[in-house]
């Protein structure tokens, strides 16, 4: 675990009294938290705890019912969307196109003309940029890695990753964790929603435990975080 910046530094993400309701169901019930730059956070919790909803709200995909989200000092997430890389549980990729074709398309959405950038991120996640078969024919693990490559495409300062290790074999998952740790060391802020907390032992700077739409504990100690789960 490395600490390149002071955790007490100005937070890059500030969430204030965030409430998100879907009809009568409240997925988030007043989340207040701040996240410092250049740190990796593991967001843990049972199914339905509100982890994905929190991540989607940070990505600007869910409009808060109440409360606010500020990224890099701006409460308009849309205006800072270039600073955010978002990886969802589904792949967010077109099954009929190859990985490179997918990334070339998404690169254009970010005004990235440099084709070498697509090749670089595909290599960074350990895939072959020459692979021509459509994403629909990838294994689940390859799809997850290509999905991570898409999130890295715009070289974001903040990475929001929802279940990046699900269906990925242990060795590949550990490689992904190493990649994330190196990106954190380069100054990126990383929020990882996962049910596989053990993968982030020694890599995450802080473990955030959610329950019933609230953050109930934050700790830097992996064992305490796990104890909270039981």
């Amino acid at each position, binding site marked *: 675990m490395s600490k390149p910046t002071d955790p007490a530094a100005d937070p890059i993400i500030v969430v204030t009294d965030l409430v998100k309701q879907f009809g009568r169901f409240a997925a988030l019930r007043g989340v207040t938290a701040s996240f410092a730059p250049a740190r990796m956070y593991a967001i843990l919790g049972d199914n339905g705890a509100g982890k994905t909803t929190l991540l989607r709200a940070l990505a600007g995909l869910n409009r808060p019912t109440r409360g606010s989200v500020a990224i890099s000092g701006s409460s308009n997430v849309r205006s800072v969307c270039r600073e955010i890389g978002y990886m969802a549980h589904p792949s967010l990729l077109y099954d009929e196109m190859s990985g490179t*074709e997918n990334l070339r398309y998404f690169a254009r959405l970010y005004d990235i003309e440099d084709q070498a950038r697509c090749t670089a991120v595909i290599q960074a996640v350990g895939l072959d940029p020459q692979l021509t078969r459509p994403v629909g024919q990838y294994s689940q693990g390859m799809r997850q890695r290509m999905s991570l490559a*898409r999130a890295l495409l715009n070289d974001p300062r903040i990475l929001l990753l929802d279940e990046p290790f699900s269906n990925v074999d242990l060795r590949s998952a550990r490689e992904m964790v190493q990649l994330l740790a190196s990106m954190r060391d380069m100054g990126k802020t990383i929020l990882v929603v996962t049910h596989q907390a053990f993968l982030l032992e020694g890599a995450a700077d802080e473990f955030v435990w959610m329950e019933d739409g609230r953050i109930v504990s934050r700790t830097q100690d992996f064992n305490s975080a796990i104890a909270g789960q039981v």
Partner: protein
Amino acid sequence: MKLTRATLAKDLRLEWRSKDAINSMLFFALLVVVIFSFSFDPTAEESRQIAGGLVWVAFLFAAVVALNQTWARELRNQVLDAYRVSPAPANSLFLAKAFGNFIFVLMLECLMTPLFIVFYNLRALGPAYQLPIVAVLGTWALVVNGTFFAAMSLRTRAREIMLPLLLFPISIPAVLAMVEATTSILTGEYSARFWIVLLAAYDLVFTTSCLLLFESVLNAE
């Protein structure tokens, strides 16, 4: 326009590979032509009177099949979210989808029109050069609203039923103008000018409205 071109190229590539929309549209339109031709046995004069209605009803129904597919592939793997988190403007996506549907429906019309001419023994007695103008304006009227309402019904449970329920009532003025303009050109009995101007005005009003409202539709939860 660069982003619109990129999304349009991507959609054309996906359609070329899957052929989902084109195949279902062609099959549907072909069925309508054959069934209508068995149902009626009109004289050449009667054909000219009814062909405008038959042609546009067939194209409208077939277009709905394609329009339902438009957003379906954006829902698979939630790819639409990748667009929503990007800085790309919503209108680029809308225009790309509308242009894509326009190309698909226009292709269908080019393929089906010769069949209509053969089955109904059609020959225009009015100014035939106006027919392509009616086709272009009419097709745009169908697809611009269709693309918009298909996006609107995207998150509804019965979206394939919802689309025609939303689209058909609002398309009535356009369909009326298309049918009247086509009939007037085929029969040569009156001028199609008024109906063509009406279609152009309809296109202008609804294209502007859709562009103004699309961002809200895209980000609706």
